[in-house]
């Protein structure tokens, strides 16, 4: 399989330039997403000053999900290292890299499924979006994070599709940008968890 992967290496100036643009693009996107969640957070700070602010016990399943997402991030990093090694010298590493990538995808999907179960648990306990301001923010934070993560999952699916099968190709810049985004999603989640744990 390794030989089936045609590497799109930065062999011309223009390809290199485009690789840079992809990387800039993902950083710029991360900047915008950070800004959006900063807006949500400041909304929370304003809203928690009102008299109907209560307390929401974050369901324990959330912590298990957190662990899964961190593992997914680590798996992606293993894939990235294997790919880098594979491109540099040892071609067999490429295959290992793709396997790690599958791992990242499965764990990512498991996280989303886990979050869905958290929402189901809350709903079963009678806690909905509009029940109180705390639950509103919980659903908004987790929902918006999940939406952004699904974007990352789509990129992962695309990467795996491109790496598998006949005529497979590998766009290193896209791969690395997805890795950056994926790690950002884990970091963002840790931040949101901290906010929800301490504020809600």
């Amino acid at each position, binding site marked *: 399989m*390794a*030989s089936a*992967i*045609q*590497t*799109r*290496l930065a*062999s*011309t100036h*223009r*390809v290199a*330039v*485009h690789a*840079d*643009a*992809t990387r*800039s*693009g993902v950083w*710029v*996107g991360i*900047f*915008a*997403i950070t*800004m*959006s*969640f*900063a*807006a*949500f957070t*400041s*909304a929370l700070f*304003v*809203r928690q*000053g*009102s*008299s*109907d*602010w209560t307390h929401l016990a974050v369901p324990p399943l959330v912590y298990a999900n957190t662990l899964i997402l961190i593992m997914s991030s680590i798996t992606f990093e293993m894939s990235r290292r294997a790919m880098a090694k594979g491109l540099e010298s040892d*071609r067999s590493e490429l295959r290992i890299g793709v396997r790690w990538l599958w791992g990242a995808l499965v764990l990512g999907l498991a996280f989303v499924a886990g979050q869905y179960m958290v929402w189901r648990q809350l709903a079963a306990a009678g806690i909905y*979006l*509009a029940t109180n*301001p705390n639950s*509103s923010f919980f659903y*908004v934070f987790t929902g*918006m994070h999940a939406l952004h993560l699904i974007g990352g999952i789509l990129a992962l699916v695309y990467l795996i599709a491109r790496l598998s099968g006949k005529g497979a190709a590998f*766009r290193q810049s896209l791969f690395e940008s997805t890795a950056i985004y994926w790690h950002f999603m884990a970091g963002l989640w840790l931040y949101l968890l901290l906010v929800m744990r301490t504020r809600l």
Partner: protein
Amino acid sequence: MEQQSVQPAHVHAPPEGFIRKYVFSLDHKMIGKQYYGLALTAVFTGMVLSWLMRFHLVWPNAKIPGLDIISKAGAPGGVMTPEYYLSLLTMHGTLMVFFVLTNAPFAGFGNFFLPIQIGAEDMAFPRFNMMSFWVTFVSFVVLISAFFIPDGPPISGWTAYAPLSAVGKDAGPGLGWGQNLWAISISLFCVGQLLGSLNFIATTLDLRAKGMTLMRMPICTWAWFITSCIGLLAFAVLLPACLLLILDRVAGTSFFIPSGLVISDRLQNHAGGSPLLWQHLFWFFGHPEVYIAILPAVGIVSHVLINSIRKPLLSARVIIYSMLSIGFLSWMVWGHHMFISGMNPFSSLLFSFPTLTITIPATIITLIWLGSLYGANLQINSASLFALGFVSMFVSGGISGFFLAQPSIDVYLHATYFVVGHFHMVMGVAAIFGIFAGTYFWFPKMSGRMMNETLGALHFWVTLIGTYCIFMPFHYLGMAGNVRRYSSFVNDFMAPLMPVHKFITIAALITGAAQFIFLYNLIHSRFWGKPAPENPWNGTSLEWSVPSPPPWNNFGGNHPVVYHDPYQYGVKGSKGDYVMQVSPETVEGEKT
């Protein structure tokens, strides 16, 4: 495995077929034109709305033929209800601010010219670029569809202040589905702008041609770059705000709706929300939005002026630094829209200081323009006239900003026509003058044909005098205590001001009619104008080094190399008094 050089992802084959060429095009030039076309549709719609409003203000009982066909409830028998006036007000503001002032100078011209001016073949992400336009287009359709639902468009203004915008149809006409459509439309618009801004930033950072250092970019490229940085952060805040608003409206949450609110004799089933939170989030976007509208115009006007005075500006760099400081300061001043909102007066003081500080870079830019004009051999044409008109509007509208920046004065003037006059001049008309300057200047490059200069001059003079006649009196009305957002004044203490209102309405009808001269000129020149040469204005930047209109991939597969700063005017060059950026000849006295 062999290394192979492959086609980079952003280079596509020229499209064939109508749909790929004109509809779902990946070409930044076509996308720029599409944005411009959308803005043109929006600006004429918005203008007709302002006509209807002005007409109703002075003849509140007059029948407007055809209006009852668009809205039976809003204009029974063709006579506008006060609520329908507010619906039109909302739509006028939303169309103009979002779909005209953001779309034309930034997304329209920026898309067409930014890649060419930095020597790139296209934007960094052409598919995102196409998506950005089509999301914006859908957003426009969603907004306009509010006219055709039974309830009509929302009455909450383009700022959609909560709780009015958040509680739903009990609060008044258009606040049911009309407001939902508004919120959905603006959310989509945010997505489109975010994609666009991301594209602009990555393109400027990474796709510049050899020799095109950041400081060699033309001022308008800088303006688009700074604007995209502002837009990225501003729309990233408006989007969450709109999502929370939608949740309050359809999912029963209480982010913006306070406890114990009784509307139409009904206690609202909401508690604890903060209407001020909406204002904070909205204006945190809203003030930077002012600069999203005006900075590209500042860039375009500088670009046109330098070309017309045939010598360098006193300092192009200081203009760039000033734009950067305006961009930076724009994040610290949103509270000056909220002096009368009931927030702590100490915060007003805190917002007042940076607001007044912004006048410093704005004044520096103006002084550089005026100082550079001194002793210049000014070429008068439609583009330079509108550029000068922009300077005039920017100063006239900006001066009233000094007053409004001070909370003690603003408290009196905020809810009056003084503010309406201020922002229409400094943000609305000024930016539109920038768009006109850009259109007359770049039309030959965009279409390959020249515009009619006589009609251009006629359009300029009527528009300049007309806009002063409309918006200067607004300031006097405001000082006399004429409140905004009222649909008629005939029966109260403002009745003595009616003659001024009549004068304004007549001026608005004439000025608006003059815009059809422009529209005629635009359409006529597009098909029957004189063919344009490559460089009709003897310009120096890269867009004048390619044919008019530029071919697919802009430079025909060649990679331009840049040798000079953008504005080598008033020098001895091989072609005349200028040296182009791509010309390898040496320029006397240029630092390399």
